[in-house]
């Protein structure tokens, strides 16, 4: 039985060392320099998945752009499921946050004049995406990490794994963590806790995500009664590499890349995104610069109609960058050139890159208010793990990096405020009791009685989600996946670990992550099943459900945890106070959504 070996205490505890976590930790330190801030992460911060973001971060920058336009693009991109007050706050604070990052040393790409350069991005009316070549997330993450080293009050716990939250009567008193190197349990008391634990894309088989993106924080908040909102909206990025799912940035299309089917035809014009734009003259919100949901759906239709290309690792279409020329590609998209060469043996200067959609981002997450507060006092959530309401049914590329900064600052400031005010402290007896409850899953894992292996279960989870809860969904498919998830939950109780050691027992961590993933996947599927309409990234195939239905579903889904029996769904009103629902339009053509062929 694992024993608690260390007890720590801090004012503000940030869980997660990615962009949102680092920005929160810095904001908390600046809000009240007397506070102790602890940054706990299961990996060294610079390994966090923010590192893999490529394309850029959005903020209104050019003279002819406007906050209203960024707001409108984001709300339309969300298929009117974004919280409009939150979007309004976001667009107003985006620019200052990117400037702040510039003042911290971020190597943004520049114009000849020395001013910051912006590029086109999907679903955005105007060029407003700041970038650092095609490694924007990498540079943002390293800039934040390096800047965080300036603050002596930030104490890092690198390679500590979040096992559970210590919650009693709707208040969070801290967390229980595993020090990965020793395998020992560590109790950390905190006045406020910020979850910045990232998304859950690894519950799918084909995804652009790092191995660490396993929904840990989402699952833990959910188990303690916080709703997961809008979980049915899972973003498939239209351009991942076949096999691995490695991300090929949307910036390729922002810079003028085109998508071709097996006939060499720019098929997007058949899906309400045309008219075809001349080669080398990309137009905002048109063709390849349509939003991600529409592009991934168009691929699905092309595949159904046999117009995709067979590749040793599955069906693909081509992303053609050749007309951009070597010099431009190496300046703007050097990482893409490196990735294509290493992972599919293609030189984008000479040949098109084979690509397919891959799960990229969870639009939904831990329900928070506009101040990043959850329904549990002292518990905050921010970044991809959270649902503050910015992305609705479909996120626009380059809004999420900015989100980490804008709302990371808010979360840090709020958590610092709460920690600075008088707040109740838990007795040692209460902490012991909560800890006792929190270690029970570990006890079970170590009992050695089971027969099931984590990697088989994880594989089946990923396949089943891809199968039943993918780009297009139907009741039968979703029911099948839910039933598989139920079986996997049952088998999960019978897990047996081959590694019985404590130090760096990564098998144990993978097993715990699998447990988180199963709960999050159930919330995704149940919400998808009950949303009987098509909106943004959630598309239903059944007759009558293929269109948006504002009458019944202009609402957020809220998934509540029920131990042992999947998710319970409730519905929540959407803030549409600033922009009434209207038709989403891209390209120069009237909307012509294709009803999907029934294949369920």
């Amino acid at each position, binding site marked *: 039985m694992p024993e608690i070996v260390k007890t720590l205490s801090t004012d503000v505890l940030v869980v997660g060392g990615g962009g949102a976590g680092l920005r929160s930790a810095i904001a908390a330190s600046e809000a009240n320099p007397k506070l102790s801030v602890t940054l706990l992460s299961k990996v060294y911060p610079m*390994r966090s998945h923010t*590192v893999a973001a490529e394309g850029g971060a959005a903020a209104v920058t050019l003279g002819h752009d406007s906050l209203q336009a960024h707001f409108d693009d984001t709300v339309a991109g969300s298929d009117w499921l974004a919280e409009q007050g939150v979007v309004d706050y976001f667009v107003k604070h985006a620019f200052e946050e990117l400037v702040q990052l*510039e003042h*911290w*040393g971020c190597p943004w790409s520049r114009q000849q004049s020395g001013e910051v350069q912006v590029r086109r991005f999907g679903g955005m009316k105007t060029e407003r995406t700041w970038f650092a070549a095609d490694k924007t997330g990498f540079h943002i993450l390293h800039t934040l990490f390096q800047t965080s080293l300036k603050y002596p009050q930030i104490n890092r716990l690198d390679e500590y794994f979040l096992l559970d939250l210590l919650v009693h009567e709707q208040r969070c008193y801290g967390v229980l963590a595993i020090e990965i190197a020793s395998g020992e349990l560590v109790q950390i008391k905190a006045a406020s806790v910020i979850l910045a634990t990232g998304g859950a894309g690894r519950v799918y088989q084909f995804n652009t995500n790092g191995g660490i993106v396993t929904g840990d924080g989402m699952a833990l908040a959910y188990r303690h009664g916080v709703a997961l909102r809008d979980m049915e909206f899972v973003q498939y990025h239209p351009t991942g590499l076949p096999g691995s799912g490695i991300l090929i940035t949307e910036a390729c299309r922002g810079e003028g890349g085109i998508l071709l089917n097996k006939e060499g035809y720019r098929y997007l014009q058949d899906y309400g995104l045309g008219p075809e734009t001349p080669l080398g003259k990309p137009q905002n919100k048109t063709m390849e610069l349509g939003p991600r949901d529409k592009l991934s759906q168009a691929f699905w239709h092309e595949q159904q109609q046999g117009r995709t290309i067979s590749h040793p690792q599955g069906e693909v279409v081509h992303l053609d960058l050749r007309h951009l020329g070597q010099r431009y590609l190496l300046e703007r998209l050097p990482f893409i050139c490196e990735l294509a060469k290493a992972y599919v043996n293609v030189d984008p200067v000479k040949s098109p890159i084979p690509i397919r959609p891959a799960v990229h981002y969870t639009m939904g997450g831990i329900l928070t208010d506009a101040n990043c507060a959850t329904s549990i006092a002292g518990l905050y959530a921010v970044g991809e793990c959270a649902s503050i309401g910015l992305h609705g049914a479909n996120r626009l590329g380059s809004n999420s990096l900015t989100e980490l900064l804008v709302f990371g600052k808010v979360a840090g400031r709020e958590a610092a405020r709460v920690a600075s005010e008088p707040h109740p402290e838990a007795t040692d007896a209460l902490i012991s009791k909560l800890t006792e409850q929190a270690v029970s899953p570990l006890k079970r894992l170590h009992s050695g009685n089971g027969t099931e292996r984590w990697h088989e279960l994880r594989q089946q989870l990923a396949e089943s989600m891809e199968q039943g809860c993918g780009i297009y969904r139907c009741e039968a498919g979703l029911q099948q996946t839910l039933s598989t998830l139920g079986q996997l939950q049952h088998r999960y109780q019978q897990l047996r670990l*081959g590694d019985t050691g404590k130090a760096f027992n*990564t098998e144990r961590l993978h097993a715990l992550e699998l447990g988180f993933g199963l709960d999050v996947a159930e919330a995704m599927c149940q919400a998808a099943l009950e949303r009987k309409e098509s909106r943004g990234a959630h598309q239903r195939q059944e007759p009558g459900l293929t269109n948006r239905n504002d009458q019944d579903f202009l609402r957020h889904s809220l998934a509540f945890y029920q131990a042992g029996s999947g998710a319970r769904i409730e519905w929540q009103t959407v803030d549409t106070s600033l922009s009434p629902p209207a038709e989403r339009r891209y390209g120069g053509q009237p909307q012509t959504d294709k009803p999907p062929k029934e294949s369920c």
Partner: protein
Amino acid sequence: MPTLAIRLQRYQPEQDNAPHWQDFRVEYDDSTSVLDALEQIKAGQDSSLSYRWSCRMAICGSCGVMVNGVPKLGCKTFLRDYPKGLQLAPLGNFPVEKDLIVDMSRFLDHLTAIKPYLIAEAAPPSQPHRQTPAQLARYKQFSNCINCGLCYAACPQFGLKPDFLGPAAIALAHRYNLDSRDSGKAERMAQLNSDNGVWGCTFVGYCSTVCPKGVDPAAAVNQGKIASTLDGVIQWFKPAKEQSK
């Protein structure tokens, strides 16, 4: 599917007195990376095998490992290039914690020591600095370091003397020193001028050879030596009052 022999260095701190070798066979095709091979072993043959990884796309810097004695990223090294089989060991010059996992804390300490952040007069709060592409180009390559530690595994000096700041930390200091927005060079020079700074380097240059991201830490060290020399000369001629400031 063809198979390939992999000899792995194992070390389980709770059982083993010292590292030892263990042989495995893995299936592979043209796309199988060393990281994929490790996952195959962990999933199907020995679940206690431990190694770090995350992004699978050579940007997070987690999966550094010695491949036939050469430091490499596991996710960007392919079995197809080793038809005679390969030998995997934890990154050299770092203490081993378990199997392929090494203790990176000294590396982190060195990074922290050189003050790797912009030290500047407060800029006008609402606008970015100007920085031309030419100014950006001066330091850009040094900002591409992913902190994977391969250059430390390649550095004989770090192996002999772990207090040596090492290639990545010196390159990072250089990155900020070269940034047109920075004025913190004087604060960093104390570290760079010290025995553990640029003068510790014996200029083998292997660090730059193994870098998976095309960063040239050896150039940073060399340019740092010039800066350090100039710094020394300037200190020599400065009035005492200013030196003590």
